[in-house]
Every structure is written in C-alpha cells, then in structure tokens.
C-alpha cells in the first residue's frame, strides 16, 4: 500500500466515523429535543397584580431566544421590549418603568434550540382589569370633578331660581322690586357657574389638572363640546332675565322674562345625557318642558318670600296667581320627568343597580318631600294666607323657605348626573355583541363576543355536532390572535356552562380584525379546530 493510498483510506475511515457520529447524534437529539413550550409566566397570564411588575418572566420547557417581544399598553399603543436577559430556560424582561394601571398584553415570539419558532401572548392587568380601556386610562381627577359639580349647581341656581325668578317677578308679583336683589344674586351665581362649567368641561375633556384652568386651549376644548352651546344660551338666558329685571313693569318686561325662561330651557336641552338619548324628537322637548316647568316653580319661591316679607297683601295676590298657574307647571314637570326617567333607566333594576338610578331615587325622595310641602301650601295654607291670616302666612313663609332648600338639594343631586352614565347607555354597551358562526366537518359553533370592543370582554360558544345534535366536548379552548398587528395567540380555557362554553374575561387591547379559533376536544382522542374572524370596535 502506498502512503498516499494509506492516507486516503484513513481519511475515508475518519469520514465514515464522522458521518456515523453525526447521524447518531442527530437521531438522538431529535428524539430528546422537542419544540419549546411555555411553562409558566410571571405575572401569570390573565392575572391582576397590585403594582407594576419590575420583571416579566417567561419560563419555557427549554432554553429559547426571543425574536420579538412587544407590549401593548392600555391605550392600545405598542412598544417593543428590548430589555431582556436569558436565564437558563427563562426570558426575564424589564418592562418600561412607567406602567400605569390597566391591562397589558405581552406578545412574544421565540425560537427554540431546534430552530422552530413559537409564539403566544400573555395578558396581565395592573391595579384592575380593563373594564373600559379608555375609562381607566386616566384616574378620576377629584378637584376637576368638584369644579364641574359646583359649576353645574351654580348654573342651575342661575337658570332656575334666577331666570325663573325674573319670570315670577313679572308674571306673579306684577313687576315688584322686592325680590330684585335676591334674583339678581342668583343670576350672578348662574353667570359664574356658566363660565366655571366651560372651563372645567375643558379640563375634563382634555384630561388636564385644575392648575391648567387658565389655559385658553382648555376653554376652547370645553366650548367645542356639546356643552359649549349650553353655556352660550345659558348666558343669553341670564342676560335676558337681567334685562327683564331692568325693564321695570309692563308688557315688554313680561315678554323678555318669558323669552329668558325659554332660552334657559333651550340651553339645557342642548347637552347632557337626557338630551343625547334617543328618540331625540321626544327627549329634547321633554328636557325643555321639564326645565321650563322647574324654572317657573322654583323661580317663584324667592319672590313669594320677598313679597310676604314686605307686604302681606301683595304677597297674597302673587300667591294667588302662582297657585292658579302652578298645578299646570307641576303636571308638565312630572310628565316630562317621567318620560326622561323611563327612557334613561329602562328597567326597574337599573334604579338600584346603577349610580344613575340611585341618584334618581334620591332625587325622587326629595321630590316627594317637596310635593308634600307644596300640597300643604296649596291646600292648607294658601287660602288662609291670601286672606292675610298671620299664622297661616308665617307657616307658609317657613314652608316656602323649606321648599327652596329642598329644591337646592335636588339641583345639587341632579348635578351629580354629570358623572353617572344612565343605565340606557350601560345597557346599550352590554347589548353590543359580535356573533360569528364557525363550522368544521365535525362540529358547528355559534360564538358571541360581548361587548364587541376593545377592553375586557366575554366570549360564549354554543357547540353542537354538524347535524346540530348534542355535542358534549371534554374541553374547549379559545385562541385569539391578531396577525395584522403582530399579536401572537392569546389562549384561554373555556368554562363549561349549562348550554354553552364561556371565557368570562379576556382582554383584547386593540381594535381591528382578530382571528378567533375554538379548539374543541370532542372526545379523548378527537379534536377539531374551528376558525373564524371577528371585528373588534375601538
């Protein structure tokens, strides 16, 4: 054998051994290795943690390296996560330090040692789960809320006691000057309230703190809302009432005062929950009549008090005109108020289960008290007072003063409605459901997603065999992904209900087309995957 030949042979031998080793190694590792799978996460998928996590850890079944890590914030913005370390089988991610309360979605994609990429999503919430992504984005700013409430209350005082007062002076008290100071004062309060409301409305709209109240942009934002026209017409109503007071006695003043009441009622039907409700042809006139009737009733109280304080005879005459007119105002007030309440609250349950309903009940309680006092005035004290009986007059004056206080309380309570969505809108939100029908050769499913918008939502699925006969799966899982937005699958096990499978709370952070899949374990060894798409509204 020549040396060259020998060398070649030995080389061949080495090669053979090398090939054998490689093949053996490949078979062995192939048997031992597997796709990586996610074993645990910290925070846990679907959990609510009290404070922002300093580290988010994903622990896999084997070492992996991330190819994409993205965090979707409660406001729907997506940030890449660059800050992570690999510790054995875990990926430890340091999230941005400024995580606010709300729900977050971490979409991960990793490649394991076998080169096979896998992906998924982990949802966790800080503080509380996103009942409403937009609502939780900002915390309640109590100073701004207080400002809004005071502004609204002052506006009511101005429009109802003030504008109504001007009307009463001219229509019931024959243009008497006795209540001039009181009514002017309420008009001024109303004017301040209108301005204050515009500013705070702006703060509330742009989400700025009270320190920014002086910024022109804030006022501009406030006036740009539906409350802007309300402010303008309210100021017009207050000015008209002032003009009526300045016009002395006579027909002109009377007509100016009535136009002030109309303008005031009009201003309040331009904005607010009730005015925004459907059917508009019913709701806006109802608000208008409700406000006008209150103004006439409430407005009469201060002038009546003033008249009785000054001149018992004039007081008696004013009281007479008022008591002839007031039953009609109360009728209009009650009918319009009833319409508003029915449309806004919808169900009797809404009275006790929602903040709006509770405010309504408190208002109703105060109203009952007010009606009781008014009834006493009307049927027990009025006739005596008109005749000038001192005891009756004293009692009547006290009673009217009490009515004024109660009305003020009612306005204060009504002003809190600014912060409570009426049950009507809550119902409307709950009722917004997306439905999708899924079908495979083995099963059919009708899936409902409620509500069909970003944030926390519930999914329920009614599953049957393809021929619509009963199917009782062992397990059902819901898998949601948004490939368009790069969000890897979020997976949730469904709970078995009476006749449907449900995932009671899953958070979808962004709107758009989501891919929905039901993994149905029909029997031990049989699975069917049902796929479809759903549209999630912003």
């Amino acid at each position, binding site marked *: 054998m020549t040396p060259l030949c020998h060398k070649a042979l030995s080389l061949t031998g080495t090669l053979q051994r*090398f090939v054998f080793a*490689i093949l053996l190694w*490949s078979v062995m590792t192939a*048997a031992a290795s597997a796709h990586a*799978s996610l074993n645990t996460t910290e925070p846990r998928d679907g959990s609510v943690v009290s404070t922002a996590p300093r580290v988010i850890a994903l622990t896999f079944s084997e070492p992996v390296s991330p190819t994409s890590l993205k965090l979707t914030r409660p406001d729907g913005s997506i940030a890449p996560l660059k800050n992570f370390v690999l510790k054995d089988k875990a990926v430890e991610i340091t999230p941005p330090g400024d995580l606010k309360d709300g729900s977050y979605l971490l979409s991960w994609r990793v490649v394991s040692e076998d080169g096979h990429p896998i992906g998924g999503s982990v949802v966790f919430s800080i503080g509380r789960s996103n009942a409403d992504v937009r609502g939780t984005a900002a915390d309640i700013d109590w100073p701004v809320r207080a400002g809004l409430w005071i502004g609204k209350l002052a506006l009511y005082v101005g429009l109802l006691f003030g504008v109504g007062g001007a009307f009463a002076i001219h229509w019931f008290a024959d243009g008497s000057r006795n209540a001039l100071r009181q009514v002017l004062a309420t008009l001024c309060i109303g004017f301040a309230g209108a301005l204050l409301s515009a500013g705070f409305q702006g703060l509330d709209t742009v989400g700025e703190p009270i320190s920014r109240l002086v910024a022109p942009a804030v006022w501009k934002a406030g006036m740009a809302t539906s409350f802007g026209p309300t402010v303008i017409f309210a100021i017009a109503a207050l000015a008209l009432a002032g003009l009526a007071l300045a016009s002395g006695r006579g027909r002109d003043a009377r007509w100016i005062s009535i136009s002030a009441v109309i303008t005031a009622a009009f201003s309040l039907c331009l904005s607010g929950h009730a005015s925004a409700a459907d059917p508009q042809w019913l709701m806006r006139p109802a608000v208008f009549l409700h406000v006008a009737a209150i103004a006439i009733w409430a407005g009469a109280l201060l002038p009546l008090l003033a008249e009785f304080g000054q001149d018992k005879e004039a007081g008696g005459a004013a009281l007479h005109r008022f008591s002839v007119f007031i039953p009609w105002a109360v009728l209009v007030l009650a009918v319009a108020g009833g319409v508003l309440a029915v449309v806004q609250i919808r169900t009797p349950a809404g009275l006790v289960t929602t903040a709006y309903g509770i405010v309504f009940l408190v208002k109703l309680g105060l109203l009952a008290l007010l009606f009781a006092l008014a009834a006493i005035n009307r049927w027990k004290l009025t006739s005596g007072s008109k005749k000038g009986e001192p005891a009756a007059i004293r009692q009547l004056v006290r009673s009217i003063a009490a009515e004024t206080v109660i009305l003020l309380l009612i306005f204060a309570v009504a002003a809190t409605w600014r912060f409570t969505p009426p049950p009507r809108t809550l119902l409307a939100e709950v009722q917004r459901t997306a439905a999708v029908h899924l079908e495979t050769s083995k099963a059919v499913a009708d899936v409902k997603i409620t509500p069909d918008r970003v944030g926390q939502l519930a999914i329920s699925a009614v599953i049957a065999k393809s021929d619509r006969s009963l199917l009782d799966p062992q397990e059902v899982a819901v898998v949601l992904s948004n490939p368009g937005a790069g969000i890897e699958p979020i997976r949730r096990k469904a709970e078995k209900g009476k006749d449907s499978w449900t995932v009671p709370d899953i958070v979808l952070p962004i709107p758009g087309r989501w891919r929905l899949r039901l993994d149905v374990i029909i029997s*031990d060894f049989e699975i069917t995957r049902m796929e479809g798409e759903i549209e999630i509204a912003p």
Partner: protein
Amino acid sequence: MLKAITLKTIITTTAILVFGSTAALAHVTLEGKDAPVGSTYKAVLRVPHGCEGKPTNTVRVQIPEGFYGVKPQPKAGWTLDKVKGAYAKAYDNHGSPVTEGVKEVVWSGGNLGDDEYDEFVLRGTIAADLKAGDMLYFPVIQECPEGLKERWIEVPAAGQKASDLELPAPGVKLLQKTGN
C-alpha cells in the same frame, strides 16, 4: 484533501437537514418511521417531556383500525391496562379471523419527570390490506398532575402537513408488502 472537505461539508449539511427535519416532528413520536403492510411492527413511542413542566403519570395510546393483535410491553413502575373492543372488520391471523382486540393501551401510575425521557413500546400486526404510502397514526395522550394533559391526537387533513399541526399524532408510513 479538497475532496474530503467537500464531502465533509455535504455530510454536515445533510446532517443538519436530517436533524432539522426530525426535530420539527419532536413531540411524542414513533421511532420506526416506516413499516411494510402485512408485517408485525414494534411501535416505540418516545415521550420527550411532560405537560407544562409537570411529570407524566399516564400515557394512553389509541390503537388505529388495521393494527391488530396488539401486545403492549409492560414497564416497571407503571400499571398496564388494555382496553379491548370490536374491530371494524375481521383481520386474518394465520388463517383464523380476528374480530376484536386491544383498542387502547394505558400505562398509568408512573412518574416520568419533565426533564426525563422514556419510551413506551407495543407490538402488533399491520393489516395487509392497508394502502402502502398512507400513514398509520397512533394518537397519544399524556396525563399529568392537576388535570393537565398533553394530547398528540391531530391527524393532518387533506392538503395539510403534519408540521402544520400543533398537536400531531405520531405516525408510521406504510410501505409495500415485503417478501412472499
């Protein structure tokens, strides 16, 4: 020398390809990738991991129709159960018809750690009338504590590849009948 390097490169590349492609199937898999119809087949099921980090306590295998005369291999530390039932049709066992047999094999009561590897073995006959070129699938369920399960039960539909599946059932490719 140049030739050797070229060879080495080719081999390495091939090995990576082999490694890559087998690894992509590395869930619960069968060791013998193919077997001729009409022959006995020793199915070696390789269990590479537990469920989400938890150990495997039970391994269940569904015996496909057309695989008859099944005898599972007992394992120390595991209780072996054979669920028997009627076959869809009669199979030939050296001239006598077989109409029923093992439909499911269950190894239970064991404790195979997530970081451990084991094999579960059963033997049977592949019916001669099965079509060569088809796959014969052995769906497997691993059961772990806390009700966790890993199911390897998906069979590709027409036009689907096994690698498209999340939970592919281990399978063996049927070859032409040999001998005779």
